[in-house]
């Protein structure tokens, strides 16, 4: 579809772009003290974009802008995830003490620009677009991680992020160049056709190029051999940014990973079992299964030793990336369905845990878990909801995390007997994770004095926590609404055009 006809399909993204431009201009006008007002503009822009996204109901996959990106239900649901996560994080940032006293106009503008990058990640079907969108998201993440310029911790987080990020995107780019050389096209749909017609002689090149590309994707979603940046960046960055980075770009990375590998190594049939058989002799499913197992095990085992709540949540987010990755090698509609469902649930519980960490840090000035002692009694509000998020992250019924994990394991079990061992490892990991999540709850309730100051956080902070906690419980009891919505959004794969 040509450029002019494409515009009408691109309205939500155009709204985001307009938001960025308006926010940038507004930031030029506002003085330092009023700079935070850009946040309200961004929120308004995000609401408008969500509304236009709601109105656009793509029935099928429509390629737009000369077949570089597509509009389909699959990308639509991910765009909602990005908009929602950004919306919450902007609200969280406005109530964070860390960002008081710094000029935050650019901060909110960059977050809006990041929504654009992530939307493109979820919908790109051209190698150029893939690389471009990943870089948009990465570069903005670097700036956000180092936003507190006077703090050495924040600087250091940004430095580590930029070095790992630039390195792995370079690796991915080299892999993309080899792929282009093998097939002579950058369009994903044509690529899949060309790859299946390649002889066995190019298997080695294809393997090398895919491993290199996996390095780029793996860095974005922080799966294990490429996860080294995660704890340091998550600890050093401002807490709202950490919350953002652990949810939104990760979701975008998984969206891209699913679309990329399903389209590239698909043989035409929508999400059916022998999908990646184009590369015969290369055990892709096994590699991804091992990666998933290693990722969640490493994430959970290292999380046990953490003393800082941000670092704990960082390793737990690595473990969750491992859980989500379990759904990828199953290669069934059910697997992708479980992944999307889990990402939505994970958004609520992870952002909730972080928003609570911000409230605690604002009020009690600590990020160390041991110093959380007695908070459960001092402030029952914080204690109760932290327990909810920790239960949900572990996956204990009746929370949403349990339903998410249940779908993932169900997809594995239904996928066939070769996935049973992965499911067992996943269950074992959930048990391990119970230990360190419950430690937080234990410290809050069973350590320290039991004096009561009955602290309830201020209006907006309390509202964010509540808004995250309600879905974390509600989707654990009644999830059919969410399940139907996710299910209807998975008709994204088409053979080619």
């Amino acid at each position, binding site marked *: 579809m040509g450029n002019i006809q494409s515009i009408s399909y691109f309205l939500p993204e155009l709204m985001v772009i307009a938001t960025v431009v308006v926010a940038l201009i507004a930031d030029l006008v506002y003085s330092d003290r009023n700079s935070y007002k850009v946040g309200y503009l961004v929120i308004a822009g995000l609401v408008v974009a969500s509304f236009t996204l709601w109105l656009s109901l793509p029935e099928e996959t429509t390629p737009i802008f000369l077949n570089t990106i597509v509009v389909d239900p699959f990308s639509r649901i991910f765009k909602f995830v990005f908009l929602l996560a950004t919306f919450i994080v902007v609200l969280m940032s406005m109530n964070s003490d860390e960002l008081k006293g710094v000029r935050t106009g650019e901060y909110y503008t960059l977050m809006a620009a990041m929504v654009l990058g992530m939307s493109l990640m979820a919908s790109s079907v051209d190698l*150029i677009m893939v*690389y471009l969108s990943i870089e948009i998201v*990465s570069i903005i993440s670097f700036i956000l991680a180092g936003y507190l310029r006077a703090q050495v911790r924040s*600087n250091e987080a940004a*430095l580590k992020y930029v*070095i790992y990020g630039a390195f792995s995107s370079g690796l991915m*780019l080299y892999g993309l*160049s080899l792929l282009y*050389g093998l097939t002579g096209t950058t369009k994903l749909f044509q690529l899949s056709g060309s790859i299946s017609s390649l002889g066995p002689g190019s298997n080695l090149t294809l393997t090398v190029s895919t491993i290199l590309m996996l390095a780029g994707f793996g860095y974005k979603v922080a799966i294990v051999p490429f996860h080294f940046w995660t704890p340091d960046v998550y600890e050093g960055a401002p807490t709202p940014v950490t919350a953002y980075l652990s949810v939104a770009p990760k979701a975008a990375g998984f969206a891209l990973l699913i679309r990329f590998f399903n389209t590239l190594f698909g043989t035409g049939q929508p999400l059916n079992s022998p999908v990646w058989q184009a590369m015969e002799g290369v055990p892709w499913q096994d590699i991804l299964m091992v990666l998933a197992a290693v990722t969640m095990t490493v994430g959970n085992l290292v999380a046990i030793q953490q003393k800082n709540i941000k670092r704990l949540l960082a390793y737990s987010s690595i473990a969750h990336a491992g859980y989500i990755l379990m759904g990828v090698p199953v290669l069934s509609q059910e697997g992708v369905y479980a992944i999307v469902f889990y990402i939505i649930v994970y958004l609520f519980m992870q952002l909730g845990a972080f928003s609570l960490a911000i409230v605690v840090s604002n009020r009690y000035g600590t990020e160390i878990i041991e110093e959380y002692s007695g908070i459960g009694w001092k402030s029952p509000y914080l204690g109760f909801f932290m327990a909810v998020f920790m239960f949900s992250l572990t996956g204990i019924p009746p929370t949403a995390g349990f339903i998410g994990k249940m779908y993932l394991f169900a997809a594995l079990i239904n996928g066939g007997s070769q996935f049973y061992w992965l499911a067992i490892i996943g269950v074992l990991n959930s048990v391990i994770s119970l230990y360190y999540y419950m430690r937080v709850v234990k410290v809050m309730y069973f350590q320290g004095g039991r004096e009561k100051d009955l602290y309830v956080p201020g209006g907006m902070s309390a509202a964010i926590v509540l808004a995250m906690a309600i879905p974390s419980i509600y989707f654990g009891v009644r999830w059919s609404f969410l399940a139907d919505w996710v299910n209807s959004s998975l008709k994204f794969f088409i053979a080619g055009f």
Partner: protein
Amino acid sequence: MVDLNTYLVIGALLFSLGIFGVITRRNGVAVLMGVELILNAANVNFVAFARFGGMDLSGHIFSLFVIILAAAEAAVALAIILNIYNNMGTINIDEADQLKQ
């Protein structure tokens, strides 16, 4: 009279040198130079494939985008390194270790 393989070998050499630089250098700016080598290795590949492989123009376009994104990335990275230098007085990435317990 130079064929595709020559360019691919040059690209592979640049790629290896870039990885070598990233792994061995401790100076933040030198690491970035290694990354630039990797990006340019990919660029050489793209242009060579597009020129000799009888393919469409997308290889050339890809390399244009890579150049621009590399510049943007380098600008952000240098600004971060400059900031580190202002606060810590060093750009040695090994000495930035406040976050490890």
